[in-house]
């Protein structure tokens, strides 16, 4: 005799599969969980993760962090000299910023060393390669992560005082972020090249390019960047490894203002040609947008949202909202991908650059479905690109209604990578990225896909558990 409202029992079976048979026999809804130990096999990792999942303060903190993220309106307001825009570069001491978590000169990878040498020469702090190396080796230059100064840079990510940087601002809060300008492909500083042509280009970028862009942007009163990215996601970009649509859309907004500046026609032509010829010109803006939004989400007590993922070519570091500026590091991975002719895995540098800030914000590899061709680098199909995107959604706590993906029915992109979910699901954040040659100055040798190391998330969870006192018993 069953009451009319028969309660429904749902069984979630974690472990021995045989235990599904009993509930199945009476027609109960049964879900078998394909359980396995955490990636590092450490019971403490599971334990701290379970405490964080059971702590109601964490979910509330994550909601706060994601709402702060969404409240940011990133507007490109100017191009300025780094020394003017970034406080840390305006001091007397020679200072250079680099990608990834902190690292000393002696430990750096080839491309980053090459980029720093180039920057030292560019600034005139040394007049030869040898003396530049000596200066860097004896502590004559302060070396700090871009991230510590509100900035991000792709690949070696080196920013020096005389270089031009994008200035991105959120009008409501006055909060700012910065990135350098993209040099293009081939022999460029960010891959460690420092020959005269590289420095010459940097000089042009810091003078003519910067002046023209600054005038054009200021004449517009700034350019709101989220609409550009939202459009680009509908046009085949994921705004990390695919930026050509975003670059085109950005150029569309700037072309007339550039033409209307007082600069000579030849200068304007050089500027337009430079931007038009660089499919990745928008990347640095995309990165600065993500940096601004994630910085706003940082520092929320108890929040387990990842606010940065960055690599210095040796180590991969993450930051988490609830632990503020602390870096949780592990060795950087090698990238799985395709190589340009003449190059192979033995030539590759480990994962490098601040550009993983795009994945951290739910774009790039997390929006791979918007740019399916990328998955071809690892022998996958367009369906795999969709699958990756859907899978990454499982480790995000929220959605971003501003950025949608047509091939997923205009579904919102994921937002807020949750350390707890990464550990619990063993789904590692996937990153689309270029592959640098491990020797300075040779350049990009391929592209592919890699994942963030599990150890970073395990470390972060343990630290978060330590700073959280147990929730009071109600």
């Amino acid at each position: 005799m069953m009451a009319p409202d028969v309660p429904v029992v749902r069984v979630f079976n974690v472990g021995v599969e045989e235990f599904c048979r009993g509930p199945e026999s009476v027609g109960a809804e049964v879900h078998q969980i394909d359980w396995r130990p955490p990636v590092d096999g450490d019971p403490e990792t599971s334990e701290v993760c379970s405490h964080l999942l059971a702590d109601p303060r964490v979910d509330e903190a994550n909601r706060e962090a994601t709402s702060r993220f969404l409240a940011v309106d990133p507007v490109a307001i100017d191009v300025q000299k780094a020394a003017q825009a970034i406080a840390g570069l305006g001091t007397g001491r020679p200072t250079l910023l680099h990608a990834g978590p902190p690292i000393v000169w002696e430990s750096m990878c080839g491309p980053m060393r090459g980029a720093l040498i180039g920057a030292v020469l560019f600034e005139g702090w040394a007049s030869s390669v040898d003396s530049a190396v000596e200066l860097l080796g004896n502590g004559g230059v302060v070396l700090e992560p871009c991230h510590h100064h509100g900035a991000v840079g792709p690949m070696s990510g080196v920013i020096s005082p005389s270089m031009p940087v994008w200035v991105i601002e959120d009008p409501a809060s006055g909060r700012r972020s910065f990135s350098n300008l993209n040099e293009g492909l081939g022999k460029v500083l960010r891959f460690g090249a420092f020959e005269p042509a590289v420095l010459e280009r940097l000089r042009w970028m810091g003078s003519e390019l910067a002046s023209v862009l600054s005038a054009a942007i200021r004449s517009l009163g700034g350019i709101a960047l989220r609409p550009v990215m939202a459009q680009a996601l509908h046009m085949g970009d994921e705004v990390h490894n695919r930026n050509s649509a975003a670059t085109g859309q950005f150029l569309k907004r700037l072309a007339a203002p550039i033409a209307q500046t007082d600069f000579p026609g030849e200068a304007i032509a050089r500027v337009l040609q430079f931007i038009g010829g660089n499919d990745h010109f928008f990347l640095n803006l995309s990165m600065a947008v993500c940096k601004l939004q994630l910085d706003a989400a940082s520092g929320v007590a108890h929040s387990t949202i990842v606010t940065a993922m960055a690599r210095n070519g040796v180590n991969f570091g993450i930051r988490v909202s609830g632990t503020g500026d602390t870096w949780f590091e592990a060795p950087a991975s090698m990238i799985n991908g395709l190589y340009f002719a003449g190059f192979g895995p033995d030539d590759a540098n480990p994962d490098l650059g601040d550009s993983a800030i795009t994945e951290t914000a739910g774009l790039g590899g997390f929006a791979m479905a918007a740019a399916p061709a990328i998955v071809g680098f690892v022998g996958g199909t367009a369906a795999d690109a969709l699958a990756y995107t859907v899978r990454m959604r499982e480790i995000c706590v929220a959605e971003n209604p501003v950025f949608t993906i047509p091939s997923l029915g205009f579904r919102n992109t994921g937002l807020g990578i949750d350390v707890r979910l990464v550990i619990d699901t063993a789904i590692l954040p996937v990153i689309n990225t270029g592959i640098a040659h491990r020797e300075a100055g040779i350049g990009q040798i391929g592209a592919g896909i890699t994942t963030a190391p599990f150890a970073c998330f395990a470390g972060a969870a343990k630290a978060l558990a330590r700073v959280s006192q147990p929730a009071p018993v109600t």
Partner: protein
Amino acid sequence: MTQSAATQPDSPVDATDGPVARSTVVTNRYRDSVALMRMAAAAAEIGGVQSVAVVMATEANLLDAATKGFAVDSDSLGVTPTANDVFIGVIGEDRACALALAVVSEDLAGSRASTPAAGTSGGSQTEAAASISSAFQRAGGSAEAHSSLDGGLVSVAVISVPAAFAASEARKALALGMHVMLFSDNVGLDDECDLKQLAAQRGLLLMGPDCGTAMINGVPLGFANVVRRGSVTVIGASGTGMQEVMAHLHRLGSGVRQAIGCGGRDLHLRVGGSTMIQALRLAQADGDVEAVVLVSKPPDPAVLRAVAEAARPLIARGVPVILSATGLHSGDLAETGLHVADSLDDAARIASRLASAAPGGSLATTTTSVPLTTAGAPFVLPGRGETSVVGAFSGGTLKTEFTHLLRDLPANVSVHAVDFGDDEYTKGRPHPMIDPGVRDREVIRAMSDPAVAVVHFDVVLGFGAASDPIGGLLSQLAVMPASRSTLLCAHVLGTELDPQGRDGIVRRLTDAGVNVFDTNAQAANFIRSAVTGPEREGHGS
């Protein structure tokens, strides 16, 4: 003239051909220990195979495999194994080994890699979820805790992962608003207290640790028999004790409203009977409960008081609460209003009588059958000398009740009862209800021991238990000469609805000369009377 062709074997025959040890490692795979043991058992059936080990390649497991003669060195394996890999070791004839390795490797190939390698397919939604959270999301989520078992959607997580991870999984499930059945054992007391506090805060049940049996709203969980749904709620600190009561209720024409396992340590002073009390509160809120049976070991007086207090509202509204706790004196329960049962059968009988079920069955605790040995000879206890009664059990409560009912035998008869489901016997081995091998070995050993007069074992049927729990034992008995002196008894715990086919099991045992009983008390009383002479009055009739 015919030429006798000297037959050349395919491979050179070594006159001193002995067994070889071959191994391999399947990287990046995880399967639960029961699944791995099943694979090992299947591979061990291959002709020419002596022994097989299929285990996760943890340091401890590899060390253990090495002592058993399996090849665990990195050179043989070609790789340094990690705890995320599966080690397969075989000892036997060379070809048989190769076949066994191939068979097991293929079996493992079916499962997904434990960590998604960079660049591999993102994985489809049709694969099983890798975590409770994911499964919960996909099933439609809802963080609302439905703590009442009567309300809408009741989610239960059944957790049987290795001990080191069990508490974490349970905590996650509670955080999602699920009731938890924690089957895993060897979970620490601190974790148990922490989890039960969390569960109590949210009005959820934490059944366990070491909870083997439950039935929620008619859905069997863990080791559970197929029983009628009815009006008696059974709340037990033990598995087989609950199973016994549930099977008896069914046999008596009654049925089970809810069966809530509390785990073996719920009545510990620090845990304070948290789950039992929670279950009593749920029973109080359940208008369809007509009787409650509590099954446990005698608890600490303070805990007993707390439990009795929680039972008070039920008793006040006319729902009898019957306690079966072997060794408890009824004086301990004075003024609590609880009924005290002498045995598990007794508890079922009282509950059935007091609930409004139509009496449809019976439950005899004694039998008039004559004790016969496996050879069919009338059993006679040896006149002098030390002798013993050996009991091999799948659960603690049955063992405790058995020993209690045989507590005053003649001085020369000792009782040796072992619970093969105890932690001591289940480390690295499946539970005897899943794989009775260790239990079988003890029965055979005892049958051959001249100092043993009586051998008794239980056969527990139902979901989760082996599909043929007696085949191995019967084939070993068949090759032994039938005994003229040893009495062999068995208690088959189960109902006619259980998947193993109770009638067939009883018949096969009886045909082999085993004295078969429907209840644990019935078996113990039979043995007592066989050993002491005429039946004694006043116990459980």
